[in-house]
């Protein structure tokens, strides 16, 4: 039987506010346990929450970026359950009236096709603390530094049909939140993590199959692997006559499998009700207009502009707009050199290769966008040839010179385009290679083209790579053919 996979994602994005969602404590990562938890975060008797306006603005910006309805009124609810790292015994969240309504996101797939994934809603909530089970001799340590950190939970519709689509969606969300600057998007530090709902159904069937929810997956790669495993597990189960049960599962990246955590029967009744300590959030049109006017150019718009105005391919436009830093770097290179295609090639080729080799992000590139742009300009105006350009790039990467021009001067890489000088070098090479000349002369005419490479190489070597290769080619052919 042909099976179809159905996937929906709940993405938790940690918002980059300076203080917590309901208190003034810092949200900085990595502090000593419990040093960034104030009376409110500790849930002391008598304390009250005060909503962080920055968190509201960030959530709304996200909503605007995904073309969502922003309801005039949203309400915080309490989700009640006991857990040691949940200080108040409830999480303040938004159940019934979330701050961001229905919207959508466009994803780009490997075959360059695009697909629209609908967002059901996004809501604000506070994060819990952390339970630490190691180093406490059988007891559990509680760190409440993270308690009260603002989260935006983005809930998609079940619109994804493959692990690749799910990963592409997650990347699209990542790129939107980092473009907006509302999250650092750091998945390793937990700034972005997601719950994946997966089910399978026979191809052509309308009704959804029973879904399993895989909790807390925290990398693009793990999302793909978790789904791949889960889909296979569910299909096998059904084909063997079994039934998928609705349950929560955990992905174990070490074993590359998902395991059952709890079934629906054991699920909590969270007893949601409106939080009486917080007023409804009321947003007027002027506020939304103001935030809309502050929005940066978003990935989808950038991608379209890269294609339409700069003439890039779908693939190049997608790769170069994936992160705000990448896009901004590329745009500066393009503006300095004036050639989008060359800028795209260099950023995705030489630069990305070097960055990957040394595991650096583009923000930390040793070669600046300006340096790279100027380097490309020198190729475009024939000051240097492509081969020399790679040497210049390497020198800039290694910090040997402040600019392309400085490196070119210092290393004497300026291209030789003087016909007389090139002819002199050619004459010398021909004079020193009688055997090869004889071989050339005796060859079939159609094989001579291939043999000319030897002479080009010798001339380039004699010029230490600085001779203009096109000129060398042309003049060599003339001179050799004159010997026939």
């Amino acid at each position, binding site marked *: 039987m042909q099976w179809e996979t159905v996937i929906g994602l709940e993405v938790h994005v940690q918002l980059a506010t300076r203080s917590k969602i309901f208190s003034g404590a810092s949200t900085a990562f990595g502090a000593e346990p419990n040093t960034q938890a104030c009376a409110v975060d500790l849930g002391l008797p008598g304390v009250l929450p005060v909503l962080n306006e920055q968190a509201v603005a960030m959530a709304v910006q996200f909503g605007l970026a995904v073309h969502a309805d922003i309801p005039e009124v949203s309400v915080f609810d309490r989700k009640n359950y006991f857990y040691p790292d949940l200080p108040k015994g409830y999480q303040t969240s938004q159940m019934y009236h979330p701050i961001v309504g229905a919207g959508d996101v466009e994803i780009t797939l490997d075959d360059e096709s695009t697909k629209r994934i609908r967002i059901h809603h996004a809501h604000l909530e506070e994060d819990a603390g952390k339970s630490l089970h190691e180093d406490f001799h059988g007891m559990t340590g509680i760190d409440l530094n993270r308690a009260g950190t603002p989260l935006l939970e983005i809930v998609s519709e079940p619109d994804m049909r493959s692990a690749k689509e799910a990963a592409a969606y997650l990347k699209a969300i990542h790129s939107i939140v980092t473009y907006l600057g509302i999250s650092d998007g750091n998945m390793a530090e937990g700034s972005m993590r997601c719950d994946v709902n997966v089910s399978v159904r026979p191809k052509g069937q309308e009704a959804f199959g029973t879904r399993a929810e895989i909790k807390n997956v925290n990398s693009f790669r793990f999302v793909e692997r978790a789904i791949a495993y889960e889909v296979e597990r569910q299909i096998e189960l059904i084909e063997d006559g079994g039934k998928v049960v609705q349950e929560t599962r955990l992905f174990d990246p070490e074993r590359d499998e998902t395991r059952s955590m709890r079934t629906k029967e054991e699920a909590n009744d969270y007893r949601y*009700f409106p939080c009486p300590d917080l007023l409804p959030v009321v947003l007027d049109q002027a506020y939304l207009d103001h935030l809309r006017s502050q929005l940066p150019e978003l990935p989808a718009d950038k991608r379209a502009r890269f294609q339409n105005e700069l003439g890039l391919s779908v693939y190049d436009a997608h790769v170069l707009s994936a992160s705000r830093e990448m896009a901004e770097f590329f745009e500066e290179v393009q503006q300095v050199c004036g050639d989008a295609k060359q800028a795209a090639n260099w950023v995705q080729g030489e630069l990305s290769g070097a960055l990957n080799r040394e595991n650096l992000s583009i923000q930390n590139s040793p070669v600046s966008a300006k340096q790279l742009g100027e380097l490309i300009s020198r190729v475009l105006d024939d000051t240097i040839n492509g081969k020399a350009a790679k040497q210049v790039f390497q020198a800039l990467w290694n910090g040997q010179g402040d600019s392309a021009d400085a490196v070119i001067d210092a290393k004497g890489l300026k291209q030789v385009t003087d016909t007389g000088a090139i002819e002199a070098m050619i004459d010398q090479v021909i004079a020193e290679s009688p055997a090869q000349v004889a071989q050339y002369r005796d060859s079939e005419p159609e094989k001579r083209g291939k043999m000319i490479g030897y002479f080009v190489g010798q001339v380039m070597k004699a010029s230490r790579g600085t001779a203009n290769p096109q000129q060398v080619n042309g003049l060599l052919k003339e001179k050799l053919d004159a010997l026939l």
Partner: protein
Amino acid sequence: MHDKTVTQLAAALKSGELSSRELTSHFLQRIEQADGTLNSFITVTAEQALDQAEAADNARAAGKAGKLTGIPFALKDIFCTQGVKTSCGSKMLDNFIAPYNATVVEKLNAAGTISLGKTNMDEFAMGSSNENSYFGAVKNPWDLTAVPGGSSGGSAAAVAAGLVPAAMGTDTGGSIRQPAAFCGITGLKPTYGRVSRYGIIAYASSLDQAGPMAKSAEDCAHLLNVIAGHDVRDSTSVARGVPDYTETLNAPLSGLKIGLPKEYFGDGLDADVEKAVREAVKVYESLGATVREVSLPHTHYAIPAYYVIAPAEASSNLSRYDGVRFGHRCDAPADLIDLYTRSRAEGFGDEVKRRILIGTHTLSEGFFDAYYTKAQKVRRLIRQDFLDAFEDVDVLMGPASPTPAFDLGAKKDPVSMYLQDIYTIAVNLAGIPGISVPAGFSNGRPVGLQILGTHFAEAQLLNVAHQFQQATDWHLQRPAFAEENA
């Protein structure tokens, strides 16, 4: 000295007739002598009080005294006070030393007042007799076999017995007004949002409100001046200017339109109480007020709606008492569930457990709409009843409680206790202010007249109450206990 009002004591301090240190020592001594009998305090902070008194005297000597500098008072043990046990009347918080001050406490400290300690109360403010305290029942100074009312029973009894000139209480369903009525003092529940809730241990967040309890409306006006106002730490406090509540106390009442809700004079109302209230209304007529009957048609839904909403919020508010970070923790828990269940089973009393169970049930899946959502609809209707009534009249008057103080141990079943709050609870659901003033006696036990106004009408309520106290002397009556035990 202990007979005098805050207003009188403030004048004596100002004139130099008295020092705050003398005043404070005097009241501390009275507490020492009498409170073994009354049990109105959970914690007495004598040393801190004397230090504060000395600071107040110094401030006065330096010409830096405010109106209430040097005046002693007491705080219901629901207000967080830095460095002082804040138990909320519960075993759960018997070991809890608050690391911060409630906004009300900060404001009172800034005004130079002297806190003598923390008063007894029903556990987590759940009760109408103060019999639900982990620290034992409080006795009514008018009759030691009677309850003082609740939940602010310790504050009411202490003021009535002259152990302290004034006290702070909180009122979620009548917890200031009913004990004020039972103990023959004046107690004001302000409009919801008028006084910051920050640092007040939450019972039912959408209903809780702090207010003054004192010997006169004038005293309440002085204290409300200090504690009212917007607080950025409480989102539900209202950003609205605070008038000087003492300025309008003497406005004449001619033309005042009084409404008597017919639902407040029906079955279950004690004859003596009704008589006292109707006599009081006659006093107002003699002062130039007009009286008419009005209707608050949804009154009989107030108690059921309250006992859905308040326990729902309480069940969530009290989840933080889990034995993990503070408060009572059971011995040698076997595992996490054991830690939770035993700590809570041991730390909470029966009434608190009952309300947590009710609240947990009404919020549960499948019951939420039938209970909570419905109760919120009823709440809106009740609020509308009051708003409609205030279209026609300026204030509403009626009894604060259907009976005078009942005997200790008299009310065994919870529902008969809940019915005690029939005239006070709707006021919290509507969020409007209410005041109870002494208006007579029944068999030697005080009767309270309740006066209600529309949202933020505190100045008017205090004016109306003060004028009554200018025309009558019920508020000047003192229990024999106050003299015999000091």
